[in-house]
């Protein structure tokens, strides 16, 4: 048996690792598989949770206000259903009967707490001097005369009409409220399952923030899963084209598959043992498998490609494998440690799932490191390789390209470095143009169902964005009610805000009705006793519970609901600030007024995600720099290690700024992807530079390094072009992720092989001197 220990490594740990793989391959493989199976068995506890609300930190101010509203008034996250036919009046007996049937069917829904439609609403009429509260639609079948009367009532009460009918009288609108605002995906699924069969024959549109929130995560996941199948196919083809070895490619995918399995299993186990929601797989975790795939791929590609190059020279498997692992164990370990440390900074994020993200991806990366360091060489050692095959005897396409690239870069290192620096500077200016936006309508391409529905709701109905204002004060006090009406009018001054509704509107309507339906009295009464009498009169004919969604039981808190067309994040910011300003200057200081609603919360969420991403990048750079400095024993190396990563971050976000790609809670994921892949290339380059600087002449050093690590780096980057498949997603931010990931791969790999190699070449006398 060849003494690997003495031949290939001076380092005892490296020797031991190589020894395990080469001299006890079956034991190594079996142990690796058993541990993978054990950890991966946690897959049965793995839980996907599409509830976006679980992503939000519990102490977010807008969330606290929002939850207070949910507690008091029930869930405000409603889904709208609009049905009708273009060009036909909806005020006909068939449509009225369908509305009745739909309402009855929806009332049986387990997730559904309340419905608001013509079929459930009441009307207040003044008949011969008394206030009659009656059902707006008293029964299923109405004659055309009754329908005309209904329409007349709605035309007279436009605030009520806007809630139930489109402006052109062609569509009915039903507002459906769930029991609670968690599990919106289940709510959405149940509602659609009930409504679709009843509304056959009509044009149907679903809308509302809850619909989008409930639909999006599963939609994204399904879309990404489908496209990634194509992506993986591309990956396989690129690897096959260059490695020219099916077993070689299979071994790379073995590392990917087993580490993914272990990561998912680990997440399941931790969730099972801790019960913590931090270890649920949410929308925020979508990029985890993508990142682990790139990292595991990188490890596997480095080992297999290096092995083939060594085998080409040494003509003996064990020798080739020994020297491969001797040169790669440290860089693979280092890239894993730096990436784990970088992702560990996510545990500092206020967003709950990012804590679990940081921990779980760390486990996945660690396992990929273990597999590629021990199991992969063991598997390689067992295979009988054909030393005469093309994979071993001939250079691949990329190897030939690298050769040429190295020549160009290292002949003109100053120019190359300067060019890189200029590109980075341009990118820096671009960063200032980056716009943060969670305009959900822009997430979907025109022509997609959700986008069309949102556009429909904006054009024909009252819009789908809801803004809620909680007002705490005496709801029977005329001053309070008048203040609320004034605030509502102020809110409606914005052209995108279509309507608003509150208990103040109801009081005005009751007042008018009691005063013989005289429009002059559609005002807030001038004293509290009158307001109270109105409620008492109402209770004699109607049910005060009718107001439970707009005023609390004790009449101490009221809710203003405004609907608007889709607004961008900037518009929401500006609008809420303006309204808060109005509240401070105009409304009674004894009143407590809070603005909230899903759109306000999403705005706050995006700010948080963007801030988390920025902090994560900065911390990651610091951590990576420190670790690299320690391992490479020089601060200069630590600084050089973060150059490609920093450049990639600047160029990618600058690119977004120049091309108007908005930064949202989806595209902010990109920062994690860059961290995941960006550091690997630099660490491999530096590790190889240091190793070869001890044995190769300084004049040939950089060329040798580029030739050595350039090929696996380019191959790794090229195989990850599979992410380009995401460009075909129906979901715009996923398209961006696909495109930007490809761009990140290109920029980090090229950045390493040009800017870093040029810089290392320029500084080599300083770098080599210290290493001798």
């Amino acid at each position: 048996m060849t003494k690997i220990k003495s031949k290939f490594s001076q380092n005892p740990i490296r020797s031991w690792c190589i020894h395990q793989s080469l001299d006890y391959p079956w034991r190594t493989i079996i142990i690796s598989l058993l541990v993978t199976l054990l950890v991966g068995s946690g897959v049965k506890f793995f839980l996907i949770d599409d509830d976006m609300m679980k992503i939000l930190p519990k102490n977010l101010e807008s969330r606290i206000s929002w939850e207070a509203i949910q507690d008091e008034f029930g869930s405000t996250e409603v889904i709208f259903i609009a049905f009708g036919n273009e060009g036909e009046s909806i005020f006909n007996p068939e449509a009225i009967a369908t509305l009745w049937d739909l309402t009855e069917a929806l009332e049986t829904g387990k997730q559904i707490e309340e419905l608001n439609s013509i079929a459930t609403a009441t009307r207040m009429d003044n008949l011969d001097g008394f206030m009659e509260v009656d059902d707006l639609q008293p029964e299923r079948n109405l004659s055309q005369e009754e329908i005309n009367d209904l329409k007349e009532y709605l035309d007279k009460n436009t605030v009520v009409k806007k809630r139930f009918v489109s402006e052109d009288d062609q569509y009915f609108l039903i507002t459906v409220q769930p029991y609670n605002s968690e599990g919106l995906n289940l709510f959405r699924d149940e509602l659609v399952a009930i409504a679709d069969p009843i509304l056959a024959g009509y044009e149907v549109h679903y809308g509302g923030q809850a619909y989008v929130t409930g639909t999006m995560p599963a939609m994204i996941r399904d879309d990404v899963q489908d496209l990634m199948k194509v992506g993986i196919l591309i990956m396989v083809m690129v690897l096959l084209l260059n490695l020219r070895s099916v077993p070689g490619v299979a071994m790379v995918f073995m590392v990917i598959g087993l580490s993914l399995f272990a990561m998912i299993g680990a997440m399941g186990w931790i969730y099972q043992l801790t019960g913590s929601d931090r270890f649920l797989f949410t929308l925020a975790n979508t990029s985890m498998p993508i990142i682990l795939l790139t990292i595991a791929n990188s490890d596997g590609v480095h080992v297999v490609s290096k092995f083939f190059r060594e085998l080409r020279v040494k003509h003996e498997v064990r020798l080739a494998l020994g020297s491969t692992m001797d040169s790669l164990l440290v860089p693979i370990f280092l890239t894993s440690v730096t990436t784990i440390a970088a992702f560990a900074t996510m545990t500092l994020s206020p967003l709950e799932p990012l804590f679990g993200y940081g921990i779980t991806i760390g486990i996945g990366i660690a396992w990929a490191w273990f597999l590629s360091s021990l199991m992969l060489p063991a598997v390689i050692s067992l295979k009988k390789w054909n030393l005469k095959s093309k994979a071993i005897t001939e250079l691949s396409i990329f190897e030939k390209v690298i050769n040429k690239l190295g020549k160009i870069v290292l002949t003109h290192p100053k120019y190359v470095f300067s060019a890189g620096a200029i590109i980075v500077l341009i990118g820096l200016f671009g960063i200032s143009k980056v716009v943060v936006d969670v305009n959900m309508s822009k997430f979907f391409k025109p022509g997609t169902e959700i986008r069309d529905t949102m556009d429909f709701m904006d054009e024909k109905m009252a819009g789908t964005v809801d803004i809620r204002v909680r007002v705490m004060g005496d709801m029977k006090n005329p001053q309070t009610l008048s203040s609320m009406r004034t605030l509502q009018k102020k809110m409606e001054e914005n052209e995108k805000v279509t309507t608003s509704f509150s208990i103040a509107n109801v009081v005005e309507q009751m007042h008018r009705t009691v005063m013989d339906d005289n429009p002059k009295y559609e005002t807030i009464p001038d004293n509290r006793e009158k307001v109270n009498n109105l409620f008492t009169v109402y209770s004699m004919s109607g049910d005060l519970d009718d107001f439970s969604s707009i005023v609390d039981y004790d009449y101490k808190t009221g809710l203003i609901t405004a609907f608007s067309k889709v607004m961008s994040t900037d518009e929401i910011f500006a609008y809420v600030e303006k309204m808060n300003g109005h509240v401070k200057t105009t409304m009674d200081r004894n009143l407590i007024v809070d603005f909230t609603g899903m759109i306000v919360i999403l705005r706050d969420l995006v700010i948080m995600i963007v801030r988390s991403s920025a902090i994560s990048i900065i911390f990651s750079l610091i951590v990576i720099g420190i670790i690299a400095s320690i391992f490479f024993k020089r601060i200069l190396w630590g600084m050089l290690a973060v150059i490609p990563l920093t450049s990639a971050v600047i160029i990618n976000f600058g690119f977004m700024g120049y091309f108007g790609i908005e930064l949202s809670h989806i595209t902010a994921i990109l920062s994690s992807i860059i961290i995941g892949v960006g550091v690997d290339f630099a660490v491999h380059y530096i590790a190889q530079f240091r190793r070869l600087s001890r044995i190769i002449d300084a004049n040939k050093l950089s060329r040798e390094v580029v030739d050595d690590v350039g090929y696996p780096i380019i191959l790794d980057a090229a195989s990850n072009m599979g992410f380009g498949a995401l460009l075909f997603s129906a979901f715009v931010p996923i398209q961006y992720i696909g495109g930007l990931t490809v761009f990140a791969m290109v920029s980090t790999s090229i950045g390493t092989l040009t800017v870093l190699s040029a810089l290392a070449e320029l500084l080599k006398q300083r770098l080599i001197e210290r290493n001798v």
Partner: protein
Amino acid sequence: MVFAQTGLEIAKMVDERPTPKDMFSKTKMILTNSKGQSRTNVMISKSMDGNKKQIIWFLEPKDDKGVSFLKIEHSDQDDEMRMWLPAFKKIRRISSKRRGDSFMSSDLSYEDLSSRDLTKNEYSRIDDEMIDGKDCYVLKVIPKKEAKSSYSKHLSWIEKSSLMAVKEESYDKRGELKKNKAYTYKKLKEYFVMERIFVEDIQKNHTTEVTFLDLQVDTGIDYNLFHEKNLKRIPKM
């Protein structure tokens, strides 16, 4: 051979049992919603003709003090209901079309508060039962179309010795249980009078408890009291 009484016969017995000529009470009504939040109303009530004429003055909550309500039932025309709104200084008629509407947002509807017309309902007897140690007839009551009821049926437990209802289940138009009612009564002079009513709306998860305090019967209430002019002033107790 002894023939068991039919449902209609029992209903007639209940209808014909002796009732006070008039009644006065201070009534407390507690409404409790599904979240456990409560509202309490206190009112003075005077009635005669088996509650066919009734006038109520609200005392509590303070916001409602001064509001009053007059009801006069007719067999051949719509019931009259009027309300005095002190803040507006107006008397307003209340619609009597929707008998299923709740009274003051309670679980008692106008229909629940009105007497049942024997000719507008079908009565059938089902097996007798014991309720809280009381031997009861059990009647199934199905309102006819002309009753314009908001219920599809009732099951009523009538205590045999007093002919007072002790329990009733009321079912909505879909045939689903809507309300559970429990009654407590006491003997006052030669009459059995209701002392407490507890109603639970199963579907809304809401309860109403009505307690009749300071009950007085046959006090000689003047027939002319039941006129809207008397709504404007709370009588002396």
